[in-house]
């Protein structure tokens, strides 16, 4: 290895360490036995243990981590998939027909700029009236609203990037609108769908506010459930257990991101026109 390479790797290593420090600190804390957390602030664990994880993964009468994981999975899937289903036809209509481009598009995209808390009170009343309070569907629906702007933005860009000749070719080939959308436009937008899904799922999974407001027992998501572990045995904060539950809660989106990352990049339209 040349000296330039060595230097470069050293810089990368330092940067990776600094940026991931909070995660490393959490992981290390999760591996320390209860007494050591307060006594030993270093990153070196003197007596590594899985005790905290065992506590987290054990179902008690008050806490059930599997229940929270399942709630989060269902709600996040609804929150990630539903916006794509809604936004895809809308994105096509906006790009190709100009539907809603002047008013609807900026309005929806600007939803992201609003502090979500202003939805809380009306939403709580609506959910109470419709029986959606403390349901996974109810939580998933509001997460879908949260994700809609990003989904629309990404899919609008994806459709706009497709050569219009492909759609014209399919019209000449006899395809009416539904077949053209499903067989030609949709597959070509796949990278955008993957990106939308990954970001949407992660956003939905990590959402805390609506989970806290809209659920009490049956549909408590992982983020809210994790907070229950902080004071497991009354008294002070159980730092080791809290760290362990954070690691457990962070794993699913992390794994999803790693698995899907490769698919986010790369264009589908190579070889369509010219070349």
């Amino acid at each position, binding site marked *: 290895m040349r000296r330039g390479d060595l230097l470069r790797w050293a810089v990368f290593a330092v940067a990776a360490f600094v940026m991931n420090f909070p995660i490393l600190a959490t992981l290390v804390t999760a591996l320390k036995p209860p007494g050591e957390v307060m006594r030993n602030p270093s990153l070196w664990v003197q007596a590594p243990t899985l005790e905290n994880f065992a506590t987290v993964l054990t179902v008690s009468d008050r806490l059930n981590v599997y229940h929270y994981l399942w709630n989060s999975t269902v709600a996040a899937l609804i929150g990630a998939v539903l916006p794509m289903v809604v936004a895809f036809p809308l994105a096509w209509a906006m790009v190709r027909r100009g539907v809603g481009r002047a008013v609807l598009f900026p309005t929806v995209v600007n939803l992201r700029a609003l502090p979500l808390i202003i939805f809380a009170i009306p939403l709580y009343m609506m959910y109470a009236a419709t029986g959606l309070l403390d349901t996974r569907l109810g939580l998933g629906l509001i997460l879908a609203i949260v994700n809609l702007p990003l989904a629309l933005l990404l899919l609008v860009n994806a459709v706009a990037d497709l050569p219009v*000749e*492909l759609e*014209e*070719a399919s019209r*000449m*080939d006899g395809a009416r609108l539904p077949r053209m959308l499903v*067989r030609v436009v949709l597959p070509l937008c796949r990278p955008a769908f993957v990106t939308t899904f990954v970001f949407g799922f992660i956003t939905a999974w990590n959402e805390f506010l609506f989970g806290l407001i809209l659920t009490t027992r049956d549909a408590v998501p992982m983020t809210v459930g994790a907070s229950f572990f902080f004071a497991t045995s009354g008294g002070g904060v159980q730092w080791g257990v809290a760290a362990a539950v954070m690691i457990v809660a962070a794993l699913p989106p992390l794994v999803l991101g790693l698995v899907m990352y490769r698919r986010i990049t790369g264009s589908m339209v*190579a*070889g369509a026109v010219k070349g």
Partner: protein
Amino acid sequence: MAGIELRGLTKSFAGQDVIRGVSLTVAQGEFCVIVGPSGCGKSTLLRLIAGLEEATSGTIAIGGRDVTRLDPWDRGLAMVFQSYALYPHMSVRDNMAFGLRTARVAEAEVARKVADAARMLRLEGLLDRRPAALSGGQRQRVAIGRAIVRDPAAFLFDEPLSNLDASLRADTRVELAALHRALGATMVYVTHDQVEAMTMADRIVVLDGGRVRQKGSPRDLYERPADTFVAQFLGSPRMTLIPVDVQDGQVVLPGGGRLSAPWAGLAQVGLRAEHARITAPGGGVLSGELIAAEYLGATLSVLVRVADGLTVAALAPPHLRITPGERVGIAIAAADLHPFAADGRRIDG
């Protein structure tokens, strides 16, 4: 197969007239080439026939059926796009089968038709590849194959050769002409390349500013262009237009040379390069300074400046030894001249 009939077709985009009243009949089985400079509306005209644009007024009939207000899928036409527009996420086979499957043709029939087209276009070994893995010429053939399998009422081509390199273009030109003979299909072909138009067309339609300037066989258009635009658009080198005076029933050329000619109202004459014969100075009706001589093997393409702002293109025998800067004469036979009025129209009709 079916003929296509356009009547008084117009198209405006945001108040801008792109097609201004085109009437045209393409006979069944005819290879019709629409040619014109860029911006003349030729692609728009093709898209109107395809149904990808809606006509502002006028009618389009295919095989005697009025299709003016029909969507593209109900017109039974196939189109080969300039960019090929192959579906990048499908194999060559699926690209060709897409239209048939859309029409719910039985899968065995789809396979047979795709195999037939693949054989005709030498694509058999490539059926499982994606378009990205094909060369430009192969993509082009897939685009044609996609059109063939559907057995359309007519084929529409939008500058299909413009993305190919020169030698492939020449080969594909020959293949397309052969394909036309083999299928006996009605084809409407748009190009800005007058060589493609001359070599492939049964009939050429010259379009300019959204209007038809002239239509006819390549020979008609070359030998009797209706106006100076058509005269200069077809043929290489371009036809030279020479402004003339008429005195005592004689044509007076720049420099004073005279030819007897019968036309009334003559303002300019057109001269094809092959009809201008290089002679010794004073040996012809025109004379001037040789400004370029390009040796092309079979001929010598020369430019002679006979007056300020007037350069005559001529083809000379390749063995002629002349060098730029020399003075030469140009001999012309009056019968070879194309007579035009001041507004550019041909006089002898």
